[in-house]
């Protein structure tokens, strides 16, 4: 009986995953997000900072929108399940199928990354921006673009999966999305005392026109390693999926809880690496910003 259930569940997973992938790809908000991202790419890189700060668009249009999309897909999946009556597909299988659908925004994020890398090399940033002085290399730039433009496209939907599974009141996804933005925006390095620990947020810059005394728009490179930050974000995504899977009370949870705890510790370690390695002290561009001239 158990073997039959397992076999049915495996078959169902493939069908469900395909269904959720199609649902995600056809969701109006995803299509709008892709169009907005495509529009910013079509507009071309910034004359001063190239494509570095274009990551805000996929961050919002694929990541934050993805959170809202995925929470809605979870609700729809639950409704379909309830309407179907007694079926052998477990909540865990449905959650995994939903998690598989993140391949859709990830693909869109990858396309953005390809454009951003091309744009960076085609139209390098001006000397008064970042990077400067050989402090960081291309890997730093590519990790920045990948973390904020591509992994964020998966991180948002994964958070939506967690919200959809654990928070069942009306409008929960909207509140979480706004709270996430509130937390994230305060950890962009704009507030100096929070600058060092900011990498624990799932979306943060590693430099920008943060200013110094006498030049409010002077460009800085902040501390931290975007490469380790990528690893930290991947661990966070894994952690999110595990937390969503843990919601199924009808399956044994002890083993999964241990794995979740292990991944949480790993994420903490990777976050600490992202904070303490790479650029270890803040660097100020010796060239003043145009506004200071």
């Amino acid at each position: 009986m158990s073997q039959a259930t397992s076999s049915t569940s495996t078959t169902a997973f493939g069908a469900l995953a395909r269904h959720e992938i199609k649902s995600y790809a056809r969701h109006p908000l995803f299509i709008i997000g892709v169009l907005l991202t495509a529009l910013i790419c079509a507009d071309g890189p910034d004359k001063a900072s190239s494509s570095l700060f274009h990551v805000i668009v996929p961050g919002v249009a694929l990541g934050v929108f993805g959170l809202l999309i995925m929470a809605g897909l979870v609700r729809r999946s639950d409704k379909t399940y309830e309407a179907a009556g007694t079926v052998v597909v477990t909540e865990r299988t449905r959650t995994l199928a939903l998690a598989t659908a993140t391949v859709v925004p990830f693909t869109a994020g990858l396309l953005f990354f390809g454009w951003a890398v091309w744009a960076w090399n085609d139209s390098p940033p001006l000397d008064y921006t970042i990077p400067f002085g050989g402090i960081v290399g291309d890997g730093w730039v590519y990790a920045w673009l990948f973390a904020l433009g591509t992994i964020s496209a998966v991180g948002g939907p994964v958070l939506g999966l967690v919200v959809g599974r654990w928070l069942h009141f009306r409008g929960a996804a909207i509140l979480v999305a706004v709270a996430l933005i509130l937390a994230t925006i305060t950890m962009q390095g704009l507030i100096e005392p929070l600058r060092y620990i900011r990498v624990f947020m799932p979306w943060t810059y590693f430099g920008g026109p943060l200013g110094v005394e006498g030049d409010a728009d002077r460009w800085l490179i902040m501390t931290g390693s975007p490469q380790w930050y990528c690893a930290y974000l991947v661990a966070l995504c894994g952690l999110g999926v595990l937390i969503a899977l843990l919601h199924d009370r009808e399956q044994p949870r002890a083993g999964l809880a241990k794995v979740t705890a292990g991944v949480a510790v790993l994420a903490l370690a990777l976050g600490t690496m992202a904070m303490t390695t790479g650029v270890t002290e803040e660097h100020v561009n010796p060239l003043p910003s145009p506004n200071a001239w």
Partner: protein
Amino acid sequence: MARHALRAIPWLFVGLATALIAVLLRVVEEWPYTMWPLQGIAVGLLAAAAARLFDEPAAMVVDTLPRHLAWRTAARGVVALGLVAWWLVVVAWTAPAYFGHAGDVAWQGAAAVLAATAYVTWRRSAGTPTPARAAGTGLVGGAVYLALARPAEDVIVLFPYTEGGPWAESRQWWAAVATVGVVVLAVTLSEADRRRTLAS
């Protein structure tokens, strides 16, 4: 009406949204130049909260009862007015954040609530039970995008900032939003009333 509103409204969401709006605007007051996008996001959240007031998950039953759409809209509209009042209080409390344009920011919230109310009432009259699910997502998503990414900010002047921002132009945008809201709401309610009269 009060009993209807008490039972029909998602109070947990509305309560958390109002609290979050206060936090957002308080943060803007603390760091107005850097945290400014949160002001636009607060407007989107306020509109989404207002939209949610008018959802009717049990529409299949409720729409057949004697209490018609205008009556139910009025009952819930009182809470929408409460949301606007809350917005005005919080904007007044955080007034130094808005570069001398607290009145404009207050107007943005009131116009957004009016437009959201009009849209969901229209969809409700067309038979959609919970239009605010999609509308709330769209409102917050749109506000987040406009506030953070600021696309074509010289053209779409919804959330200006700093003393020299295009506040007068923004006022016209929000006036247009409010006007469309009033017209849609009036037409929807009068049409629903006409249909009810014909049916009876």
